[in-house]
């Protein structure tokens, strides 16, 4: 039987060619550019690199980027969990539609998202002109940057949680309720431990995207150096200035974040795939 049906990977040379092809594509498309970033950043020596990174405006861009992520991640953590919880634990009309709507930020180009926010909250926008009467300005300042970043990164947590929570079902939680636990207690003692790793995974992805977002932020930022310039925007600005080394130094910081993200992601995936250990603390519920 096995002799009759050769699978594609059966021949050793086919396997070798395919693996070799995949490897070389990975190296050409992913590894080399990453190496080039660090190579270029350090091409003028270590002291030039540090002076570029410690430049007043670069430091501000780093601070702003961290600040935006610090606001975005908790917001989307709560939003994503609430969304996944309601979609998987309750039946209500429009549930399917809601599940589809979650993906809108993935389907829309970030630039378009930025423009939408600008047209809505800008000086001539519906909401923006009303807020303007009270002297509240959201666009071209950090609240605008946070708003579009939240929009762009909103699906990550929910997208990680929904399949897992659907698969796990709600029996354990129902048992908890029957035994008289409050809703908060059920969430804390049963739901949260079950979804913990998927949640962390979602947070890591949200964080990476929040720090790296360019398109949407570029539209609403106003590009004011030392005020609304995030790290990705700062990279472009330095590049436009012919400060290639500076641009790559700033880019290497973003690449560093990306690498840390990958490591964290690999760790979480490894934890997720481990067989469930008996959890002693659950005995006390």
């Amino acid at each position, binding site marked *: 039987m096995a002799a009759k049906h050769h699978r594609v990977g059966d021949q050793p040379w086919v396997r070798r060619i395919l693996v070799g092809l995949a490897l070389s594509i990975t190296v050409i498309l992913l590894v080399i550019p990453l190496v080039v970033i660090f190579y270029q950043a350090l091409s003028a020596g270590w002291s030039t690199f540090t002076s570029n990174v410690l430049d007043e405006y670069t430091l501000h861009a780093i*601070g*702003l980027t*961290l*600040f935006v992520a*610090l*606001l975005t991640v*908790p917001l989307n953590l709560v939003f994503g969990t609430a969304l996944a919880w309601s979609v998987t634990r309750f039946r209500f009309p429009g549930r399917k539609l809601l599940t589809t709507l979650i993906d809108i930020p993935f389907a829309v180009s970030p630039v378009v998202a930025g423009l939408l926010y*600008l*047209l809505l909250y*800008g*000086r*001539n*926008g519906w909401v*923006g002109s009303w807020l*303007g009467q009270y002297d509240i*300005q959201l*666009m*071209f300042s*950090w609240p605008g940057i946070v708003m579009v970043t939240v929009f762009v990164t909103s699906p990550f947590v929910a997208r990680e949680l929904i399949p897992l929570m659907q698969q796990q079902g709600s029996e354990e939680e129902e048992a908890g309720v029957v035994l008289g636990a409050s809703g908060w207690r059920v969430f804390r003692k049963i739901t949260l431990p079950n979804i913990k790793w998927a949640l962390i995974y979602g947070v890591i992805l949200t964080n990476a995207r929040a720090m790296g977002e360019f398109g949407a932020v570029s539209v609403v930022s*106003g*590009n*004011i*150096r*030392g*005020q609304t310039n995030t790290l990705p925007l700062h990279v472009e*600005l330095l590049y*436009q*200035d*012919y400060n290639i080394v500076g641009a790559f130094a700033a880019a290497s910081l973003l690449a560093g974040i990306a690498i840390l993200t990958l490591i964290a992601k690999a760790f979480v995936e490894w934890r997720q795939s481990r067989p469930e250990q008996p959890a002693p603390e659950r005995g006390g519920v």
Partner: protein
Amino acid sequence: MKHLLKGIALGAALLSAQPAFSADRELLNTSYDIARELFAAYNEEFKDHWLEKTGETVEIKQSHAGSSKQAQAIIQGLKADVATFNQVTDINILHERGNLIPENWADRLPNNSSPYYSTMAFLVREGNPKNIQNWDDLVREDVDLVMPNPKTSGNARYTYLAALGYAQETYGDDQEKIDQFMSELLGNVKVFDSGGRGATTTFVERGIGDVLLTFESEVLNIADRFENGEYVPVTPEVSFLAEFPVTWIDEYVEQNGTEALAKEYLKHLYSEDAQRLLAGFNYRVHNETVKQENADRFPELKLKSIDEIAGGWDNAMETHFTSGGKLDQLQRRR
């Protein structure tokens, strides 16, 4: 959770905090993408000037992006005090769509509110091997050109209009010959990049083409950058007067209470010291003394204005650059 809230509060405090040397006044200048170093230098000059004049310290914030994008941002509420652009049309928009400045903004400062100007010039490779001297050399069959796309780039529209100015000068009323010349010139363009800096990269980094067509200021910049004569600037005899218009934004300076400061920031651009500084960044200026100091770097040439070549910006856009306009027709002839 408490730690998190504390962290957010701390971050917000850090971001909104003024720098340690807290200035008395603040001014926001929105400008085009490649003017950062120019205004970084001018800001220092102006800070001293303002301190001497009023005894106040001033902090100047800079915003840089393509000037069309900047104009949109200002209309949508980026509360800039002054705009220093490289496109007259982008300042007109502030009046037409935003009603933020009066229609006669260009009359409020000398020289059409353009404290400095430039023109379109050529950059050729070491030793000028193809002997490029004027516009008619660009239509020779052995010459490859690099310039941005006139559809997307103001820089390229200027080059198009400069070439048109030369053709009008040479062929007078003979429209057929003018069209022939323009279509041959466009036909020689090997790469149309989307923007000015992209075209520079194509010419310098990728080594494509014999001639780069861009602002004289950019041409001189690149020639300065490679001091060993790797690139040679060539200024044609006839070219286009490319104005760099500035304005204060009436609506916002009133809100920000910065009217006097903003006006002085722009007026001071016309002072001799500032004009010398601008000339150092390879822009042409109006001040006679500074002009004479730099006479060898900026050869005399005949500069034609937009009114002479195409009867104003509105006309130029409509006749030449709209979809199906003259530019499209000329490119289809080949």
